[in-house]
């Protein structure tokens, strides 16, 4: 006996179920297709959510350890003095304190003039990456140009740029830092603080070693600077990213919920198919009962049929969902391996289990109905 025969011998219900399903292949295939679509919907929508989340995290992730200290305009504080910065530096035991000055400037190259924001930062290397050129460790002269502005004015490192009537050498074009950051010079320039003279600071950015450290530091700054008066507003990027994460969590749940509805529809179609096929096979079921097959065994056979539909639909659906996930992640994130994150595997397993359980539940009533029928009645009908 070959292994499959032995398996069938061991689980005769599976043998009967498989043969019964192959009797009307089209009908079985259509019933399984419903499950395929349901599983595909749940798993791929879940994966889609993961892709959104990972994409957002990639945009936000590097800033999770940044804290922005802003003057509280409501308390009449417009900007920070050197003393304020020193106090922040005193509170921050570990991490970089980066005071930022800011003003509007006119930037010109050739005949083109743009009015943009200029930031004065002593160590821009802490906050930015160079797309082209090099950011000096100690920034004393020259100018750094945001990538959009550089595109606009057709600037590259080595060119000369006129800022408020003075000429500067372009040292680097900065990489885009994304939408969520305290200082976004994408459409602006960064100048050495010396160019701002004794101008006060618009904000202070603190980069801690980790998200958790950032949280502690933020609390320390609040305690120290707001002791007498609410002078500063402390913003943690990590809390923003957390909110966004939560938001995508909700979207994810919603998407999976939508997918579940399609599985419900599939369940109805399985119920229909199983009812039809058990009605058609009344006579045969009567024979089974007559030759000594117990009710529970008849039930098991029909449940095995429903389960088989669920398993086949689930496997095919999961496989398609993985393909869809791979395609999506290559296209959106350029990283196919995101598909195999544990969260996605969880979605796959959940969708598969959900398919199996739904199929079994839809098989339950037809199975019970068929098993309950009196063999004499069943035989008469056949």
């Amino acid at each position, binding site marked *: 006996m070959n292994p499959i025969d032995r398996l069938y011998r061991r689980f005769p219900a599976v043998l009967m179920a498989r043969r019964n399903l192959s009797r009307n292949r089209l009908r079985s295939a259509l019933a399984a297709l419903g499950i395929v679509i349901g599983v595909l919907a749940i798993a791929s929508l879940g994966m889609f959510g993961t892709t959104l989340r990972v994409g957002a995290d990639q945009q936000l992730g590097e800033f999770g350890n940044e804290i922005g200290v802003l003057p509280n305009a409501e308390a009449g504080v417009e900007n920070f003095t050197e003393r304020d910065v020193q106090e922040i530096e005193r509170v921050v035991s570990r991490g970089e304190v980066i005071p930022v000055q800011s003003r509007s400037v006119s930037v010109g190259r050739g005949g083109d003039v743009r009015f943009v924001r200029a930031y004065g930062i002593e160590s821009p290397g802490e906050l930015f990456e160079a797309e082209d050129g090099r950011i000096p460790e100690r920034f004393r002269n020259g100018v750094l140009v945001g990538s959009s502005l550089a595109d606009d004015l057709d600037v590259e490192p080595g060119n000369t740029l006129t800022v408020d009537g003075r000429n500067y050498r372009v040292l680097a074009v900065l990489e885009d830092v994304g939408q969520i950051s305290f200082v976004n010079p994408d459409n602006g320039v960064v100048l050495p603080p010396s160019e701002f003279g004794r101008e006060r600071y618009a904000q202070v950015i603190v980069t801690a070693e980790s998200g958790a450290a950032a949280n502690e530091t933020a609390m320390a700054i609040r305690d120290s600077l707001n002791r007498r008066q609410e002078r500063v507003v402390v913003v943690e990027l990590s809390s923003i990213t957390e909110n966004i994460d939560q938001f995508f969590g909700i979207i994810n749940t919603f998407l999976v919920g939508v997918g579940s509805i399609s599985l419900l529809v599939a369940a109805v179609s399985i119920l229909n198919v199983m009812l039809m096929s058990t009605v058609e096979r009344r006579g045969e079921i009567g024979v089974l009962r007559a030759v000594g097959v117990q009710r529970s065994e008849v039930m098991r056979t029909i449940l095995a049929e429903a389960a088989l539909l669920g398993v086949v639909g689930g496997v095919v659906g999961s496989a398609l969902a993985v393909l869809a996930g791979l395609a999506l992640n290559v296209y959106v994130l350029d990283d196919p391996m995101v598909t195999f994150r544990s969260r996605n595997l969880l979605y796959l397993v959940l969708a598969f289990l959900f398919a199996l359980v739904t199929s079994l539940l839809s098989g339950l009533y037809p199975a019970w109905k068929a098993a309950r029928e009196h063999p004499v009645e069943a*035989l008469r009908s*056949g």
Partner: protein
Amino acid sequence: MTDADLASTTGSSGAGDDVPIVELRNVWKVYDTGSERVEALRGVDFAARPGEFVAVMGPSGSGKSTMLNVVGLLDSATEGTVLLDGRDVTDLSDREMTSVRKHAIGFVFQNFYLIPSLTALENVELPTLFGDDPTARDRARSLLERVGLGDRIEHRPDQLSGGQKQRVAIARALVNQPRLLLADEPTGNLDRKTGRSVLEEFDHFRETENVAIVAVTHDPQVAEFADRTVTLVDGRIDDDSSWRGVS
């Protein structure tokens, strides 16, 4: 009561030839649908001994099929006693009746009732399929060989002729080595010649296995093969006929 108990009290190790393998004592079967009351069997006494071939004849609606269902434990009697191998089986549960059917009774139907998706061999194995029975496949194979279908064991029912189908059905009925074989119009869907060969098959098993055969039929040919013929009229055994054929 366990399946094993049922099997041992009704199996092939039973009492001698003088004890009936099956016996009905004053059996009534009444269908009460609310609006009308149908008495399908009205005090039937009947017995079949091992190795005996009994034909049950009678007009349509006389209660033949009902009697066969009660004898075969497919249906329970409203009143009276059903004995199988000397044991009272009147009030068994569905589970127990199913188990007795499996081990002690074989069925052959007019419409053969083979499962179209299973091969001839699997159809013969059907009564043994649920449950651990390591020798079932060998028994099924040898039964198919004995009914002359050794070269058709992997065929599906739609690849077999009517006579061949009924032979598969006979093999199926005998796979659990029952002592009682019940047939409902076994030749009803066969031409005369094929019917005759199927009856010869019955005769053969009756002789070699000491199986009691009860066949409900309209076919006079079946009566020719039977040791005796019982006639049912309006749910009663017609006494004049009941021992005809036994001298």
